[in-house]
């Protein structure tokens, strides 16, 4: 009878230091990346640390970050959504046009917009689970249809390509105070979207790490068939994730509507990539089963810093997109290096 070599220890039994455990978290690499980008901009554009400037960075990050929360969860669940950018505008247009056309209190439109946004999410998830088509195809179709609907219905209902202003309608001022408010911290105006973003990240993190649903999300993203075999409701989980994205789209859509009074029907195209980029920078894998909501938030923060930092640095605007791409690439590479270091230890 041979005895196992005691020098060879099963890797599942290997003890890991707290530092190793910390470094293996999906969001830690992106956090290091965020610190690197922040330090860089503090050096080249010290104005970024002024409270008012930092509040602007946070606002820019929050309008990406709100959607990045839903998209991060969806990507952890093994799917992604190409309709998110225009879905935000669809939500805003629904609330605006419905209230305006039927001369209703804007809260009726807000409620309907929530139902429509959740419905779009449900439809995406339901078609996906019923047909087994890739989410790329399903949501690309939704993206194209929503783009057309946004333009077609806005012209049909409002007679123009932007929604009519609803700022003089009942309920507008209250809705504006909720969805497009600012509040002061230390004398600095902070946009309400920053608070929405923080709350969404907290709720999403709690769901992922502290609930049965969180386990299901990781399971369906890792291996849907294996998850189904152990009793995970795969279809319901995926539909729920798409509806979560729909909720985020509604929230950001309402901010857009009440912050700017009217909505351009052609907006939103291309933003879906920013949300996916934020999630990926934050450590979510495109293949699913790995990532965190906090990581997606950090990814959005990196994007916000790079986007606004370039302006604060007053670099040649012709090179804006190049600098932005370079910043995002560097942040992602730092994330990758940290992750690999953690895996090697």
């Amino acid at each position, binding site marked *: 009878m041979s005895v196992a070599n005691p020098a060879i220890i099963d890797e599942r039994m290997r003890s890991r230091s707290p530092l190793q455990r910390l470094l293996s978290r999906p969001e830690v690499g992106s956090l290091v990346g965020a610190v690197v980008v922040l330090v860089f901009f503090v050096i080249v554009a010290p104005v970024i640390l002024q409270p008012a400037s930092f509040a602007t960075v946070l606002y820019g990050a929050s309008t990406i970050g709100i959607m990045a929360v839903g998209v991060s969860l969806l990507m952890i669940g093994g799917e992604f959504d190409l309709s998110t950018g225009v879905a935000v505008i669809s939500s805003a247009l629904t609330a605006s046009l419905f209230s305006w*056309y039927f*001369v*209703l209190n804007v809260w009726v439109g807000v409620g309907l917009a929530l139902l429509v946004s959740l419905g779009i999410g449900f439809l995406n998830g339901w078609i996906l689970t019923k047909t087994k088509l890739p989410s790329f195809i399903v949501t690309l179709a939704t993206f194209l249809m929503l*783009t057309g609907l946004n333009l077609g219905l806005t*012209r049909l209902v409002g007679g123009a*390509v932007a929604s009519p202003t609803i700022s003089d309608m*009942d309920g507008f001022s209250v809705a504006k105070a909720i969805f497009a408010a600012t509040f002061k911290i230390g004398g600095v105006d902070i946009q309400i979207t920053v608070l929405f973003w923080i709350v969404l990240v907290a709720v999403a993190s709690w769901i992922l790490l502290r609930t049965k649903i969180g386990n299901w999300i990781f399971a369906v993203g890792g291996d849907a068939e294996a998850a189904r075999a152990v009793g995970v409701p795969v279809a319901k989980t995926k539909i729920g994730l798409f509806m979560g994205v729909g909720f985020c789209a509604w929230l950001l859509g309402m901010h857009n509507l009440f912050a700017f009074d009217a909505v*351009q029907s052609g*907006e939103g195209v291309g933003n879906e990539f920013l949300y996916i980029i934020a999630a990926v920078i934050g450590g979510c894998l495109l293949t699913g089963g790995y990532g965190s909501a906090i990581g997606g938030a950090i990814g959005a923060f990196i994007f916000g810093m790079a986007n606004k930092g370039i302006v*604060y640095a007053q670099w040649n605007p012709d090179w804006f997109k190049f600098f932005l791409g370079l910043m995002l690439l560097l942040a992602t590479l730092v994330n990758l290096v940290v992750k690999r270091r953690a895996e090697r230890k």
Partner: protein
Amino acid sequence: MIALTAALALSAVMVAGCSSTGGRPQPNANGAAGPAVNTPRITIALVSHSGAGDTFWDIVRRGAEEAAAKDNVNLLYTADDDGPRQAQLIQQAIDQKVSGIAVTLAKPDALKSVLANAKAANIPVVVINSGESVAKSLGAQAYFGADDKVAGNAVGDKLLAEGYSHPICVIHEQGNVGLEDRCAGVKAKVPATEVLYVPGKDMTQVSSTITSKLQATPTADVVIGLGAPFTLTALKAVEATGSKAKVASFDLNSELAQQIKDGKIIFTVDQQPWLQGYMAVEYFWQQLRGGFSLGGGQPVLTGPAIVDKDNVDAVLKFAKDGIR
């Protein structure tokens, strides 16, 4: 029964939720008039480089539609902001044997060969809005529009006259020649002009990027938007930042006209887009009616027309009608 209950509940919500102010104006009983002419019906194609959902091009289209309704013209309006795809749309118009084609030449190189095809098919072409410098060489019979550099110069002159010295010119679509020309025109007159690029497809980012620029540039004394929706967002950003900078604009809509009247925007330069669409269609009808040539082969400029507090009242009514 469930359906009936749901319908009643929805009705109750809608009745209870009615707004006492604002909303859609109630329609009146006036019917639309038929064509005002008795010339044979012709088909005209208008192919622009508009992106989806652009308010400026909506006004151009309205002008063309009004002329078409009056002149017994079947108007085929199509648009694509991608040069090669715009060329394909023009080719489709040629294939349909239209009586005339109006095009925008924002990307003239992409349209050279297809405009040669139109010439070979004996289909007259006019150019609107952009491409004045190349219109004639590409075989166009007329040009209706503004010169963006001239419009930029007009803004620069007015800013100088009013004592502004450090403008920020906000470009909402990087690489758009017309927008770049507008800012270049301003800069030619006010050398300290800075260009700021913002992502025009996302108003929240437009707002926060303008805010960050104002925070980084406290000496800026005027922000110039290159389209009405973007100027209105710039105004909100300026107000939120507490900046002393004023706001000026290119182009017009009813909300912007109202803000000029209220003294929140100092002025705008209007290129009268409705007129561009209208004259494009009218040109072909005039040609059919009596062999007339609007403009006599010379460019017909529809701008720059400066709208400020002194003359905004005359414009506001028409802006509310969606034609200014």
